[in-house]
């Protein structure tokens, strides 16, 4: 399956058909999710309407973690099997992950102010997510720091793999350390501990964000492939014109031979 997908021209063909579909379903899911989150979902009995921030904050946090995992797996595949698309996928996904991490941090801060009485605390959950944000930024900077994209890709892959230790720290930080942040109420053993009226918009927003990620991932991968192809063409164009005058010079000699 991975082998079959790792062919760049096949990816280009499939993504051309899948991209519009992903984009439009993402837009539809996000519209429905926003309406459900802002209008249909009830205010929380303790937190009032601030609970509506959850419908963005929590899916964004899940995306931040899952996209990092995606970048790390793609990096491992790129390092071990050298699949041509894996490194492109990691490079294309990291900025999307960084954007979701930023959204998670910003909305968390806006939720923390009215509910905790503070914009920010240096506890394990918030600090480890901030580190995740810096890992993304570091990956983006490193990948673009080399003229040779394969060297940049390798350096970025190693950083992404080292940063994986941060993921379980984020996930379990609320259980291991004392924190203002609540512990998991959806992804927990024993099932979700959240009312269905809030779970539904949460899952719709998560689906919307996931489809949005897939669409942007394909778009950005296609961009990288286009840029690489253009780079090779430019390189060839720089080399190719040189032998041509030699052939043209040889041309006049040709009729003389017959």
């Amino acid at each position: 399956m991975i082998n079959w997908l790792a062919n760049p021209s096949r990816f280009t063909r499939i993504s051309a058909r899948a991209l519009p579909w992903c984009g439009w379903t993402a837009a539809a899911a996000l519209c429905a999710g926003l309406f459900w989150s802002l209008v249909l979902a009830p205010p929380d009995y303790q937190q009032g309407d601030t609970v509506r921030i959850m419908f963005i904050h929590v899916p964004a946090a899940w995306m931040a973690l899952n996209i990092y995992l995606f970048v790390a797996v793609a990096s491992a595949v790129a390092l071990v099997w050298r699949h041509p698309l894996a490194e492109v996928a990691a490079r294309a996904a990291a900025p999307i992950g960084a954007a979701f991490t930023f959204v998670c941090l910003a909305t968390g801060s806006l939720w923390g102010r009215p509910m905790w009485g503070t914009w920010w605390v240096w506890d394990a959950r918030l600090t480890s997510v901030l580190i995740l944000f810096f890992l993304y930024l570091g990956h983006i900077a490193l990948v673009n720091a080399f003229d040779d994209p394969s060297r940049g890709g390798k350096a970025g892959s190693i950083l992404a793999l080292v940063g994986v230790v941060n993921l379980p720290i984020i996930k379990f930080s609320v259980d291991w350390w004392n924190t203002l942040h609540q512990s998991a109420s959806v992804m927990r053993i024993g099932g979700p501990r959240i009312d269905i009226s809030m779970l539904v918009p949460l899952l719709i927003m998560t689906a919307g964000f996931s489809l949005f990620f897939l669409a942007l991932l394909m778009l950005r991968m296609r961009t990288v492939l286009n840029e690489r192809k253009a780079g090779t063409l430019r390189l060839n164009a720089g080399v190719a014109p040189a032998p041509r005058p030699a052939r043209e010079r040889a041309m006049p000699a040709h009729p003389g031979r017959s």
Partner: protein
Amino acid sequence: MGDIAAFLAMGGYADFVWPAYGVALVVLTGLAADSWRRYRQSTVVLDRLQQRRRPRR
């Protein structure tokens, strides 16, 4: 009218709820727009290079 005002007030938490949705909207649509712009640009550049390579001469 009162319904809309109540909706916008967000139970007194308008100052936190709306900026949270605003940040998400700005960051995600900004990223999508930038990705789309870069994609268009890369196809234009590639098309130009491929045209230059093939039919000339």
